[in-house]
């Protein structure tokens, strides 16, 4: 089976995020108030061949930790894509 998976990579809490902070500062000027804790990150979409969902997620989680993210400063999370 092929599973469509999204991997989200964001900076870990406590790691400064100059990109997120800059976006957050820009929002009030555009009229968007009440938005806080903006964190910038990356999203990857991949198709993973596996026997079941759990295996596909496990594989995606492993490759996310090994390559897609730098665990020293980033968290990664693999999830099934709702769009398939």
């Amino acid at each position: 089976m092929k599973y469509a998976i999204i991997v989200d990579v964001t900076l870990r809490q406590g790691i400064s995020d100059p990109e997120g902070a800059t976006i957050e500062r820009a929002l009030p000027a555009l009229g968007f108030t009440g938005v806080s804790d903006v964190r910038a990150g990356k999203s990857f979409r991949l198709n993973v061949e596996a026997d079941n969902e759990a295996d596909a997620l496990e594989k995606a989680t492993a490759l996310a930790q090994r390559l897609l993210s730098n665990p020293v400063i980033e968290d990664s999370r693999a999830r099934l894509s709702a769009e398939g």
Partner: protein
Amino acid sequence: MSRIGVVVFPGSNCEYDAASAVTQLGATAEFVWHGQDNVDGFDGIILPGGFAHGDYLRPGALARFSPVMNAVASFANAGGAVLGICNGFQVLTEAGLLPGALQKNRGLTFLCHPTTLIVESTRSVLTLNATKGQELSIPINHFSGSYTCDDKTYDELVANDQIVLRYKENPNGSRDDIAGVSNLNGNVVGLMPHPERAMSLLLGSADGQVLLSSFISKTLSVR
């Protein structure tokens, strides 16, 4: 004579400067293509600046999986002198050969200007010939040079004298003004500034000489 290998990744762009600098100081330099799986016969290895593998994903993220990096890791673990400059520093942190990570600069600005560095430790292969507290004028040229690490790592860096160089005026938001760090043994060093671009007074500064001459002398003593 010290024989220095300068690793060339697709996207490296400071390899000629690095080779020229160590040659100026009396060493020989040879380029090592990133696909090579050994660094046999070299006394020291330099990972130069640039944009290895286009800096895709993150600076250094793909370069760490280049075949040559296994050889560099073995060389480093055997006590060999390894120097990562700018992008090379990023590669060494991604490869786990140096602690911490390099983030985008505070202010999200590409920085290219001279900086004043302060020598914090003379225990590393890059600073053996320097003096603690010595000020050096060395240029920076980077977008992702903000050094970061967790508190535990930071405490270890301080306790083990692994902070090699600090900025006198922090240009990029680096934790505790850190410009360069070493591994525990001091034989692997990474720094964001470019000592190979500070080799001649005619071009602004010759302060890189004391750093690179340390590195070269150390490679000789290892052999």
